[in-house]
């Protein structure tokens, strides 16, 4: 397992995500420039649950997601990645 629930929450925090309560998941909603630019689900339950799907949900590689968790990659760095991939316009 590359990312567990704790990592998922760390990524959500790093990206200043708003957490919306769902039935089985919390939905981490990421906003930028007054618009919602991404979201991903965080499974409820124990911290050992696998969340290896999150890098794909936020359009980064596993390595970049790991950098988000470990701090070297900032929210602005992530926004730059999304702009490059045209998931953010303007």
């Amino acid at each position: 397992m590359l990312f567990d629930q704790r990592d998922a929450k760390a990524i959500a925090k790093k990206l200043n995500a708003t957490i919306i309560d769902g039935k089985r998941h919390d939905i981490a909603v990421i906003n930028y420039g007054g618009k919602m630019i991404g979201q991903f689900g965080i499974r409820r339950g124990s911290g050992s649950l696998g969340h290896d799907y999150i890098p794909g949900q936020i359009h980064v590689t596993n390595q970049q997601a790991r950098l988000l968790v470990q701090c070297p990659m900032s929210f602005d760095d992530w926004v730059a990645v999304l702009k490059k991939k045209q998931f953010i316009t303007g």
Partner: protein
Amino acid sequence: MTLPQPKEPPTVWERLEGIHTAKGSEYDLLPPLTFASNVWNPPDSPTRYFAWAPPFSSPAPYADQEKVLQSIAASLEKLVPRIAKLEADVADIRKHADVVIATFCPEPYTLRHSIPIHIQPTDGSFVATFFDANISTSGETEEEAFANLKSLIAETFDFLESVPEEQLGPEPFRQLAVLREFVSSAR
């Protein structure tokens, strides 16, 4: 008085084993087949009965046989890793599952089309993905991953529907458009 019946030509195996020479017929004149001549002149070849191998007394056929056997052995050696890779690929493909969400019952959603879901194993768990909408989640079993994804699709649909469209960035806007293609709320 009964007329002698024409005999059937000897089979390949009879010729290989030299059995036909004991039958006493015109085919006795045919020399026994060697492995090499059988390989290079298969039974359906038009030259089958014209390309006889040299007599066994000659050392040449044994040299030919050895070359052929070496060539076959070399080919088999090349096949072994390829077969192993194919077996691994097949085992890998069998681990994946492509299923569909056919209903959201008893949740209040109507499906316009079944939703294709891809489930694949990861380290100790399973990840279920609806690729068109880029929505994924995981579960300890395939069934749990499937149920979790169903739930997440419904939750994401409800949430995106609640956000004014002008506030949706390109990706959430696209996700909502895809979800609307597949799901509608029955409320």
